[in-house]
């Protein structure tokens, strides 16, 4: 594993252990709902389902279709806030 992925793994471990990961997930969920991202993605999913047909579409199909768009549409402010939170947490729990 590269140094970067080792660092990521360590950070993830710390976040999970302290329950911060769950809190961040909730924060992210709320922020993405507030800014309308969730509604946008929902609408896009409906389009994909219409295209592929309800009987044939799989979760995988949806994931492949909406992941790139979803990633791109996350507002910078949300990214900034989460980054800020993670940094603050790591600073607080530095070993």
């Amino acid at each position, binding site marked *: 594993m590269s140094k970067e992925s080792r660092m990521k*793994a360590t950070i*993830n471990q710390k976040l*999970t*252990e302290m329950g911060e990961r769950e809190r961040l997930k909730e924060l992210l969920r709320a922020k993405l*709902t507030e800014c309308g991202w969730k*509604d946008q993605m929902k609408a896009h999913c409906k389009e994909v389902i219409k295209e592929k047909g*309800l009987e044939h579409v799989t979760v995988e199909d949806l994931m492949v279709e909406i992941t790139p768009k979803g990633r791109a549409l996350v507002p910078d402010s949300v990214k900034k806030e989460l980054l800020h939170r993670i940094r603050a947490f790591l600073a607080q729990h530095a070993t």
Partner: protein
Amino acid sequence: FQVNHPGDFSLSPIKPKLNVLSVMSPAGCSHVNGYKVDNWKQNLRVIYQCFVWSGTAETRRRKAKSCICHMCGAHLNRLHSCLYCVFFGCFTKKHIHEHAKNKRHNLAIDLLYGGIYCFVCQDYIYDKDMEQIAKEEQRKAWKLQGTPLLFLRIGEKYTTWEPTKRELELLRHNPKRRKITTNCTIGLRGLINLGNTCFMNCIVQALTHTPLLRDFFLSDRHKCEMQSNSCLVCEMSQLFQEFYSGHRSPHIPFRLLHLVWTHARHLAGYEQQDAHEFLIAALDVLHRHCKGDDNGKKANNPNHCNCIIDQIFTGGLQSDVTCQVCHGVSTTIDPFWDISLDLPGSSTPFWPLSPGGDGSTVNGESHLSGSTTLTDCLRRFTRPEHLGSSAKIKCGGCHSYQESTKQLTMKKLPIVACFHLKRFEHSAKLRRKITTYVSFPLELDMTPFMASSKESRMNGQYQQTVDVLNNDNKYSLFAVVNHQGTLESGHYTSFIRQHKDQWFKCDDAIITKASIKDVLDSEG
């Protein structure tokens, strides 16, 4: 004012050709039958508790250590756990797929969301029994998490709506659906004036357009425990039904008026009343009648009430009295439903806003135009006030009567904040209406008026830059009630906001489209 509300009320259309009603029942697959043997339920619960929704510190530690892919060590890439053995594998890199093929273990669980994947069906499946277990374990974990970050203040975590059998039946029998578009006018309805009842009509318009209140009533959350027919909350519920029925003719609120007269005697009679008084009286009666909605929690008492009215409208006002001699501070916090603000032109002097004056601009306003702003009024409201030698307070520190200063700040902000501009002066000498124009913004940041901000200022931490990312104290204007005329004879109208930025003027039975400029130019 209302906190930036996530999204807006929308009903998704159920198109007949999708036959969604049949798909809504969980679609399981037969391949789970091989798994559902022996003690499978308990095993599944353990997996949820330990690896998906880890509620305790111990399970979290174990999750942090062991939830990595057994093939590549990654913790991301949509990690899944095999349901048949202890194996974690990435989904994205297909490590779990390899395991499934090699060991013929056809079921895996997504550690992020708890979904069950069947490798034979090659899709996530929804088995009723497993879904039930998943829900229960998720609830358990949430409870253990302590103060959940963003539970809806109604007291439950948001879960997507799943219709009950009865609801499915109702939907089938009533196939007509209404789609809410961004410019539809549902929810708008005029109110007939029953004889100087415009004061009531305005407040009703404001209440029926309070999103959280609307959502509460339209989802039938009120469980009535009153024996008689005089429950105001039930009447409110009826009112919402009337407003959102789609009928365009004005509604005649005679039952509401009658109930208000019954429960708030001081408002009875056909003379013109004060809209603000009506708002407070209405909130009070609604709060008292909400007994059935507490979900078994403490009965309605002002300090612990959990009714919808308190959840939406109640804030906490902190009053600090500082002794001028020993500088000891005595603090009390009182609940409030509204903030009544004095205006310039009344008999009590308005300017300067605080002893010594404070020149900072708040909420980006300037005084170039010369008009008073809402934030000026708020700054005055929260200014330290010398109580003077004739109003000495008994100081607990000095054990004697001393001069003191008193200051009000916001301890807890309500979800919906009501600001009342005290335009009607009823002093001993005169009764008059103050018509000073007060400008108010579309968006209001209450941060400078918070008790916490005052503390930071006192500790020397001057907040030079407003935290743009933090929306906690920010409000969005959604209703304005105006009074035209004099104290003796006048007329109330209101502006209310529909959707994100559409405003309408409500003049009793007449509803007209209004511009944002109309709203902001109005007296308030």
